[in-house]
């Protein structure tokens, strides 16, 4: 019986073109492992170098966004000790000859507007504007690199071959689900 359920889950993903899917707590170790498998899979396909590297780059930034910014985490924000786990979902697949990397995680409702504004600005930028934004962000970021210098979203938009897509969903009073899709 349960084979049907598991198969259905798999079939649902495959119907959407998904080749890799990860849902759950993410760590840097997960990024390494899934990343290595993704590299091997991409190497086996006849995509050009630039596309392969861009898919991988978008995957890394999306994973690190979950790791750094998901508010669904263990130990809970503010608590000390234990592992550092961040909950999120990430899929990589192909749709109409393009690679699609999607990721989602919970954020605070109070951060939705600021995220929406940043993403909307990125969506409107052409290649040259994205180049300038990347550079400017890199220059203005503080000299400690722990938070990735806030440049990850710009990197995703730069590597994507179409404007990035984003969406927010109400979850409860304090939380929203943030989803980001990049097509390479």
């Amino acid at each position: 019986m349960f084979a049907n359920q598991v198969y259905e889950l798999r079939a649902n993903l495959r119907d959407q073109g998904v080749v890799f899917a990860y849902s759950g707590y993410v760590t840097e170790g997960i990024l390494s492992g899934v990343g290595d498998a993704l590299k091997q899979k991409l190497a086996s396909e006849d995509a050009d170098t630039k596309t392969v590297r861009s898919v991988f780059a978008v995957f890394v930034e999306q994973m690190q966004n979950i790791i750094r910014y998901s508010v669904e985490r263990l130990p809970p924000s503010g608590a000390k000790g234990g592992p550092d786990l961040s909950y999120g979902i990430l899929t990589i697949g192909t749709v109409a000859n393009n690679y699609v990397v999607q990721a989602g995680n919970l954020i605070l409702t109070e951060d939705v507007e600021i995220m929406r504004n940043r993403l909307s600005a990125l969506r409107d930028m052409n290649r040259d504007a994205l180049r300038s934004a990347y550079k400017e962000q890199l220059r203005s970021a503080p000299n400690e690199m722990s938070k990735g210098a806030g440049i990850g979203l710009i990197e995703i938009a730069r590597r994507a071959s179409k404007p990035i897509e984003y969406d927010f969903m109400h979850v409860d009073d304090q939380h929203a689900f943030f989803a980001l899709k990049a097509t390479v």
Partner: protein
Amino acid sequence: MMNIEIPATNRTPSVIFDFAVGHLRITGESYPEDVTTFYNPLFEALKAWLEATEKPGCQFDFELIYFNSSSAKAIMIMMEMLDTAAAKGMNVVVNWFHDPDDETMEELGEEFGEDLNHAKFHLEKRPN
């Protein structure tokens, strides 16, 4: 100063800082688990050497296949150190090698190169 030789891993580049010769190289991929832990010792060594050395020049080769956005900041910090040394009179040559098929890496090289006011900068195609 002791030379630095760090072999590449899946997520970190090979680093060879041959201070005796004045030839420094970073090769491979850079998306470390903890970018600070990986790069801080390199910053410290590079800064200390640039300040203390009596060598008239040095060459720094970036031969990166891929780096993530956190590593970009690290690259910028090293470029700034090199440019500062060049401003003080050192003959600094920075080479940026990129895969001919990867125009993003070429663009990134151009962008970093634009910020060098004193060091000499060369952008070169080299298949990985």
